């Protein structure tokens, strides 16, 4: 007979359950307390894909704005001048958004590592690595840290654009801007494959959609001038 053993067993089991529950509660509580008291819970770091995109895409967009303003001064074709106005204001506004992300994240506007480093990093697994519409012409994988951003016009090409007027300027503008947009689409696809940051994905999706449709439009404008 063991009447003094039987009441102990349920008590031990109860203590075990209570102990584990208390442990889990403590962990959850500690995590919550830590998350709430941490300064900026999850802002991207200076070497993150998000920061790399925000810096490189600003430089990329700023050149598009420069090109659009150049052609407005060099063409009197109303349709093309209006498209250029659209591009300049849209891309200037988008560049401002990326500028403000970096400021909000307490990061410097200046690169902390060579440009394009973020694009050489592997995409998120399970994410939509093939996001977008596959518009980019070059292989997204061939980028190296410090490389040129896809679609950027060279110093010489910009100088040539400045030297031309009329239809010749329009043709060069359209050729350069189609390549520039395809590069922008490639960069937007690259960040969509690598980031889950809400504001970044939202802007990258807008860039992707607007530049894909503008490429089609510019191809018809260029064909009409050949």
């Amino acid at each position, binding site marked *: 007979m063991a009447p003094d053993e039987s009441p102990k067993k349920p008590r031990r089991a109860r203590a075990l359950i209570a102990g584990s529950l208390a*442990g889990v509660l403590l962990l959850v509580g*500690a995590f919550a307390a*830590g998350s709430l008291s941490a300064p900026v819970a999850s802002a991207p770091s200076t070497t993150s894909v998000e920061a790399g995109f925000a810096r490189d895409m600003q430089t990329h967009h700023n050149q598009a704005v420069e090109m659009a303003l150049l052609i407005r001064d060099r063409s009197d074709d109303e349709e093309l001048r209006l498209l250029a106005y659209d591009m300049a204001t849209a891309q200037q506004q988008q560049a401002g958004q990326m500028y403000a992300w970096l400021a909000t994240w307490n990061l410097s506007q200046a690169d902390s590592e060579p440009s394009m480093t973020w694009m050489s990093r592997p995409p998120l697994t399970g994410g939509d690595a093939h996001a977008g519409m596959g518009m980019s012409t070059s292989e997204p994988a061939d980028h190296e840290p410090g490389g040129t951003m896809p679609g950027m016009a060279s110093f010489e090409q910009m100088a040539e654009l400045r030297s031309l007027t009329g239809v010749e300027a329009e043709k060069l503008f359209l050729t350069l801007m189609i390549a520039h947009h395809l590069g922008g689409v490639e960069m937007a696809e690259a960040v969509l494959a690598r980031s889950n940051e809400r504001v970044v994905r939202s802007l990258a999706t807008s860039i992707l959609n607007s530049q894909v449709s503008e490429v089609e439009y510019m191809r018809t404008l260029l064909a009409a001038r050949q």
Partner: protein
Amino acid sequence: MASNNPANPSVKEQRETKRAAKVAVLKKQQARDKRNRIIGITAGGLGAAAVLGLVLVFVITSATPKPNPDDIAIGDLQEFPGLTANHIDPNPMDYEAAYGMNPPAGGDHFGAWLNCGVYTEPQQNENAVHSLEHGAVWVTYDPELVDEAGVEALVEELPSTYVIVSPYTGLPAPVVASAWGAQVQLDGVDDTRLGDFVDKFWRNPDLPEAGAACSGAIDGPGRVS
């Protein structure tokens, strides 16, 4: 029948003695249990507190952001707060007399900014200062002390946009980096303070018109990129 003879205890007495012995054992057991429980609770509490502390420290440190650009410290940094930003064309400005600057690091300027880029010739101060207002960093070098390879090394260190590189005669140091309201005299092209200066001031949101264009205005003489 009933007897008090201890040598021959009654059944009742025998039962009581047995019971007393049992009670004593039970009491001892209870005391041991109590002691064990106190040890267990204390140890568990200490362990839980340790885990709590570790988790708190881990969560807070892993989420703490990198140092703000505002907190970057630069040795021998000169700052010029509260600058005016009037357009003064066509009259040139004496930046040394007006603000104690050589070369200029902000202040009144011409309406046209200098397009950012690398120049092999000295530039008009009043145009370059307008570019500083838009967030550019102007890196001036003493052409007597910095050769072509030195200029290349400088350009390599700098961002590809919103930067002016140009020679400047009468500099107080081999290389001087200037932004709107801030300047640092560098010992040479490999002075590590240049990178910190760029991180802190290049297109800094505190500048009057940071993000305004550094292209589309005028090219000075000798622009090479």
